[in-house]
């Protein structure tokens, strides 16, 4: 390249620069293939960069206005030669760039993220409350319709990760590497090789993110996979996803963004935005696809609380997502996050509705032994307690009153509920009250299978349980309100009264039976049937009718009597006692000999 001023000096400069570039042309030289400049020697690297600068300078200094055609042609020739040299330099720089990136593109160091004193990554600490602390042994075997357990995981899962509660950028590679990358990027971009630069950058960093994802336990699952998995398995995946996503958004992606900014610092924000998006767009979408798949899974009651956890976590992350993905080209990611949030909210609402219907429909007719709480009651009240734990989120999400079906249609399959008297209550509170109403309605339906005392007993035990549960939780009590609580208590009292009545009647029956038995024994024992065989046959005939009937009678009602005062006044005879009594019949005992021998004594 002929320059009028200082021809020799610049020519020399250009020539030696060209030499350096050509020396490192790996398409030509074996030696050049074997070494990486930036790994070898700082000095070499500096020389190389200076050489590149020199060539670039000469290109921009090129004089393009020449008077003769020959001069113009010559200039074009020279320019072409320079361009050729530049291309060789750029190809080399691209490889160096790629090499430096790859050397420093391993997975995120997760150790530095953890507080060593808390639980390790693989066994996260969370609380799991079993269904009910006072579960009695009898219940656990009961009723496989309601074998669902409700686990409440404390949403303070962030205790496992130190400070993933806000954005925290870490250094993804050493400072020297960043400097080198920056130096190379600047030259590539100023030579018009921006695209190659961003291409390489994006592809290597994306792979690095893939490694971090694997380390964080982020899986690639299809929507089909997720539909097929058992909910319990999904729960642990959701937990893991929440923890991993906090790290991804607040640390990983934020740090990548910072890295882009550093490397492409001098060239403007559009470029580092583009590089950043090139790097993280795919992984971010993959990440969110999981939450999206959960949000569209089929609704059923046990899913509510994990879905709320997911919703809350995403809600919490939203400002950070918006901060990290703040450019125009990342619109789709922000939009997807918002869409998922909205679907999760919808799912929560749907599940609550589904739950309410399920209570209404719950058809089990297994009679519960007296004194125990029906599993349905237990399940529902536990569920309600958990709902009140999630009160803050649910109050925001639940916006409409419960659908009570046709209220005045006289439809016997749903209870009525007067909403007028429940003015000023939040929709969530209305739902809770509705749930209790529906539960009672279902219990009433069940109790119709029981007769007399058992009926009333079932009912009051369960209503009592409900009342206690509500009273025991300040949030529940506050939401359901004392008015309704009074109503419930009133019901309890009514039921208690009718139970007392039924119990009284039952005691009368026992007393009557006892008296009759004693009378019959007194009489029959004095009769004599001399013929042994006939005597035997008669006794057997009486036993066959009497014993099973008494056994069944006792079986049904003994627990009621025994739960009251002085049961011994009413239940005097065991089944064995009765058998003994019958043995006395037709023996012809003298009147003085009679007293009922009670084996049970």
């Amino acid at each position, binding site marked *: 390249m002929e320059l009028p001023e200082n021809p020799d000096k610049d020519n020399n400069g250009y020539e030696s620069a060209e030499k350096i570039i050509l020396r490192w042309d790996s*398409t030509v030289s074996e030696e050049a293939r074997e070494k990486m400049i930036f790994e070898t020697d700082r000095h070499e690297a500096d020389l190389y960069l200076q050489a590149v600068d020199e060539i670039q300078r000469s290109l921009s200094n090129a004089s393009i206005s020449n008077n003769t055609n020959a001069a113009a042609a010559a200039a074009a020739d020279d320019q072409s030669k320079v*361009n050729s040299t530049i291309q060789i330099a750029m190809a080399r720089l691209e490889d160096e760039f790629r090499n430096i990136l*790859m050397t420093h593109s*391993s997975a995120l160091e997760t150790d530095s993220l953890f507080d060593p004193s808390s639980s390790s990554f693989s066994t996260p600490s969370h609380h799991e409350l079993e269904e009910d602390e006072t579960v009695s042994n009898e219940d656990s075997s009961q009723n496989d319709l309601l074998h669902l357990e409700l686990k409440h995981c404390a949403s303070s899962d962030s205790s496992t990760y130190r400070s993933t509660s806000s954005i925290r950028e870490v250094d993804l590679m050493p400072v020297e590497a960043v400097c080198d990358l920056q130096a190379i990027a600047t030259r590539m971009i100023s030579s018009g090789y921006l695209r190659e630069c961003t291409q390489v950058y994006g*592809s290597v960093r994306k792979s690095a993110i893939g490694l971090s994802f694997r380390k964080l336990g982020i899986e690639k699952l299809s929507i089909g996979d997720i539909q097929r998995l058992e909910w319990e398995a999904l729960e642990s995946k959701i937990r893991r996803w929440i923890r991993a996503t906090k790290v991804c958004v607040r640390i990983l992606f934020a740090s990548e963004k910072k890295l882009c900014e550093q490397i492409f610092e001098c060239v403007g924000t559009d470029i580092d935005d583009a590089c950043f998006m090139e790097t993280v767009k795919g992984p971010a979408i993959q990440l969110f696809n999981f939450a999206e798949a959960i949000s569209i899974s089929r*609704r059923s009651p046990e899913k509510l609380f994990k879905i709320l956890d997911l919703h809350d976590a995403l809600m919490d992350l939203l400002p950070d997502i918006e901060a990290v993905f703040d450019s125009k080209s990342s619109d789709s990611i922000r939009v997807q996050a918002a869409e998922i949030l909205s679907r999760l909210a919808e799912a929560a609402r*749907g599940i609550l509705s589904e739950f309410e*219907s399920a209570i209404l429909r719950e058809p089990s007719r297994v009679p519960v032994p007296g004194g125990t709480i029906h599993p349905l009651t237990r399940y529902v009240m536990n569920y309600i307690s958990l709902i009140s734990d999630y009160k803050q989120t649910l109050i925001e999400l639940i916006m409409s009153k419960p659908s009570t079906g046709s209220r005045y249609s006289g439809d016997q399959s749903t209870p009525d509920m007067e909403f007028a008297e429940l003015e000023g209550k939040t929709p969530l509170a209305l739902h809770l009250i509705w749930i209790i109403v529906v539960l009672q309605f279902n219990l009433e339906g069940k109790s119709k299978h029981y007769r007399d005392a058992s009926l009333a007993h079932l009912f009051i035990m369960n209503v009592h349980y409900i009342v206690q549960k509500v009273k025991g939780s300040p949030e529940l009590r506050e939401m359901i309100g004392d008015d309704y609580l009074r109503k419930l208590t009133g019901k309890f009292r009514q039921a208690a009264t009718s139970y007392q009545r039924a119990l009284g009647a039952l005691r009368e029956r026992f007393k009557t039976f006892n008296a009759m038995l004693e009378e019959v024994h007194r009489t029959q024992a004095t009769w004599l049937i001399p013929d042994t065989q006939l005597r035997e046959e008669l006794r057997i005939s009486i036993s066959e009718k009497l014993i099973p009937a008494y056994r069944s009678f006792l079986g049904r009602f003994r627990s009621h009597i025994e739960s009251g005062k002085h049961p011994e006044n009413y239940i005097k005879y065991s089944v064995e006692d009765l058998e003994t009594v019958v043995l006395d019949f037709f023996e012809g005992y003298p009147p003085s000999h009679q007293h009922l021998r009670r084996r049970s004594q």
Partner: protein
Amino acid sequence: MTGTDTQSSFLGRISIRRNQVNAMDGSHEQEIEDLDLFQKQVSDRFAEILSAPDDTPFDAFLSISWIRKLLDVFLGCEAECKAILLMGRDAAQISKPPLDRLIPELLDRVVKALDICNAIANGLELVRHCQKLAEIAVLALEQKPFGEGQSKRAKKALVSLISAMHLDDKEGSAHKTTDRNWSFGRRGGNKDRPLFGHYKSLSWQVARNWSASKQIHAMTMNVVPPRGPEASGLPSLIFIMNLIMVFVMWVLIAAIPCQERNGLTTHLPIPKNVNWTHTLTGLLEKIGDEWKKKEKKGMAGLLFEMQKMEKLGQSLIDFTDSFQYPGEKDKVEEAAKQVAELAEVCQRMEEGLGPLQMLIREVFHRLVRSRTEILDVLDQGAKSSAPLV
């Protein structure tokens, strides 16, 4: 099959499905009318997009623009189908046999379609990647004066481009390409560094064992035209919806690269003796033939722009291979024309890929919404038949 024939055959039969008999007066007629209208609309809409005028080459068959039209047609049909299915109907009507089997199967196919949408969205990223490589080549080839530097630069980009297109779309096999586009061979024995092929970044973001061809195959199972008394009415509607959905998903998979398309079936259960399916059958044959031709060579999809890009790319590689400054005049001129074409393809991609991605997303949303709505109705049905006491 006319309305009156069906009606009289119903009248003549003692059907166990009393509902159908009861609903026959008025509403069943209406149903048959709706269905006929729907079939006609489906047929018309597909026929419209089949015929593209020749002077707009970029609305050509299987171009980005054509696919967008196809998806619009799909959305239109889907909306109508859903309306006919759900409007004015209660849960009881859509839970009776054979709908109690057909509708859950439909919903299951919808879920499979959702996964396909996600895979396609991922695949469009590969298309974008190719676009960017092509743009590098165009940039280089448009330089004036055009010298060996630019030629080498262009060649490098084009070789990457062709390799990306011939990506074996099996999961994890991204390293089979012989030219990994390093300027030189990598040193051996680099065991402590993870293997970063140039295309690792394009590793699919979908589930590991997911296969597009298997997914389509699974979707086609049990898609059979309803027979007998079911031949009119909702089962027929559902059959049509299934068909359209499977067809559209199949076209997407054939056109746009996505994971594991080996053995993609070229048979779909489109009934041949029904007049409204002519257009679908025609499209199926046309695309199927192309697919079979190209499948063995390994290719990145039948998308018109990609095919064009590949052709131009190959040709320009040849040009750059033999180029020596200043180059032969007519070769240079020929190349310039091709570069201009390539630039236009890139432009089309630049304009069309974004909207296409958004459209796929919209299809996704619509399918989710419809599925949720149908599930809601079905759940309510279970509610009302509560066996209390």
